[in-house]
């Protein structure tokens, strides 16, 4: 019991010490803050411009170099860009025209069937109703145009993103190198590459898809990477212990087990791509984004809201179907 009492004293003492140390800590912070503010004030008062302004400006030479570089690319690689752009335009045009051409009842039935099969009955029916609403609000054609661009952009993101994700999962150096680039791709304003994009690929869907892919690809890469990395290490070791080489490990163990996470990445890619439709509309991609953009230019709140909701509805339909797929798959093949 004597021990306990001693301890107790110790503890209250400690807590008092803690109190004191807090005061000291905050006190010091306060003093430093006041001094810094005072100094700032003096600096401003004395107009010491070396400290208020930056002494040099690196901007002009760099911006000029960038301008020149873009011009150089446009002039010298025009033929490549034009060729790529032409291919893409034909393809997108075909898909778009097809989607518009198919009578809407068939499209709605197809989506309903897919939702039902892949996710659940409720998702199937809900998706059908949502699409019907799009039609009834006169957004069908725009929605199909948007979907066409979306499909291409997402396919490109997948085709490029998944292999990059796989490489990132197997190389820590590549992963470290790609991380700030991906961060950059998601925070860099699209406007920055939209104009050069148009200079390279011309106005319209291709530049729009470029912008969309750049913005939408990071989650695909990130979650492929993550999915493979978080495959239960015990299972990977089992694969290794049976003499799988790297390729076998990847194709027989890691990728199959990462599929739900990869699907989550694709889902996010689709969502990001949908978030880009208005930006895409600014470079002539048409679709629901253009409806929003036009309505904004004409100050038509109502039209903008309806078209905007159209985008939201598309997003939710796609999300629910793909989430349903992911959940179903997770349930069937996971241990525990």
């Amino acid at each position, binding site marked *: 019991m004597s021990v306990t009492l001693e301890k107790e004293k110790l503890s209250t003492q400690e807590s008092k010490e803690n109190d004191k140390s807090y005061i000291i800590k905050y006190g010091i912070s306060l003093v430093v803050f006041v001094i810094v503010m005072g100094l700032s004030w003096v600096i401003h008062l004395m107009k010491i411009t070396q400290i208020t302004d930056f002494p040099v400006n690196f901007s002009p030479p760099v911006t000029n170099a960038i301008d020149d570089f873009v011009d150089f690319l446009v002039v010298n690689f025009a033929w490549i860009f034009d060729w790529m752009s032409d291919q893409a335009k034909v393809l997108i045009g075909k898909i778009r025209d097809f989607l518009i051409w198919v009578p809407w009842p068939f499209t709605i039935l197809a989506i309903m069937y897919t939702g039902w099969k892949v996710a659940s009955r409720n998702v199937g029916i809900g998706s059908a109703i949502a699409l019907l609403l799009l039609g009834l609000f*006169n957004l069908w*054609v725009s929605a199909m145009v948007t979907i066409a661009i979306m499909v291409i952009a997402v396919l490109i993101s997948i085709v490029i993103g998944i292999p990059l994700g796989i490489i990132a999962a197997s190389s820590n150096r590549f992963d470290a190198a790609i991380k700030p680039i991906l961060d950059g791709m998601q925070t860099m304003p699209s406007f920055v590459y*939209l*104009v050069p994009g*148009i*200079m390279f690929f*011309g*106005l*319209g869907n291709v*530049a729009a898809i470029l912008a969309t892919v750049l913005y939408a690809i990071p989650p695909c890469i990130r979650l492929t990477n993550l999915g493979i990395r978080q495959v239960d290490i015990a299972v990977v070791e089992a694969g290794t212990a049976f003499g799988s080489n790297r390729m076998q490990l990847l194709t027989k163990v890691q990728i199959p087990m990462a599929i739900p996470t990869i699907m989550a990445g694709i889902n996010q890619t689709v969502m990001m791509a949908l978030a880009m439709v208005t930006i895409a*509309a*600014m*470079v*002539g991609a*048409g679709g629901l984004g*253009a*409806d929003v*953009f*036009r309505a*904004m*230019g*004409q*100050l038509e709140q109502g039209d903008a809201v309806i078209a905007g909701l159209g985008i939201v509805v598309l997003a939710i339909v796609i999300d629910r179907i793909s989430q349903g797929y992911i959940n179903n798959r997770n349930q069937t093949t996971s241990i525990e």
Partner: protein
Amino acid sequence: DAIDDVTGSGLEGEGETLVFAGLNWDSALVQSGVARYIVENGYGYETEMIEGATVPLFQGLIKGDIDISMEIWLPNQKDAWAEATAEGQVFSTGKSLEDNWQSTFIIPGYLQDANPGLKSVEDLKKPEFQALFAEADSGGKAVLYGCMAQWACRAVNEGQIEAYGLSDIVELRDPGTMGALDAAIEGAYLKEEPVLFYYWGPTKLANTLDMRVLEQPDPSECADNDPALGCGFPTAEILIALHSDYQGEGYEELRAFLEKWDWNATNQLAAEGHYGEIKDDAATSEEAYRNTAIWYLNNNDAWQSWVSADAKDRIIESLAA
């Protein structure tokens, strides 16, 4: 091409598609609608429209993805336009929207009625009017919703404020985009709040809202008519622009038509009004503008002098159908 020649109508536009710039404001949309109807039915062109923002659309025009833009607001795109014409990428067939105007200092009608003393720019120097337009974060200065920072009129705004000695009285605020400026003005009118802003016409907003322009010196009082030196804006040049491909042979009739194009505020007002009435009945906005064009062509005949006789017949014929 050979097949076209055998089976075709022999019209200039046979087998050609003209891509119009889908600028997202009313006058451009209405003009494009009328022009499209005329070139389709009068000259046999197919037409398309690509919608987008101003800068991307101009890039498209340079590159050739856009063939024709019905409104290039020259003062605002001066540098880009000069460069592109110098490079021979684009050319103009003359003016489009006539009767245009712009002003940096506009107040709502209700405000002027309530403050009869506020008539000219000089009146802003009176403390009561300065306070009228002050906002929470303007440090007591009057706030002016100015021209978009990316347009050339921004520099004019700055010059005027400087020249009028309003630097310490007026804070020039960047609305960012046209849509934002419109929304801010519309909001103020709805709330009947004081607002001081830059705007221009003929536009839907200027036509529907009671805008009063504060008096400024006439442009002619400034050297080179440069409003930035302390005058009002002179009338702007708004051009119809085409991609350089259409400078060559085979497009003579098209160019002749566009050169004669004469669109003024009256036309615009009428067509825009009709558009407002019918737009809800159309499935797409493109269809609405087409119907507007048909209505316009049926109810006006000024256009008949813009086109060749053959074309006129064909257009009248198709309007009757």
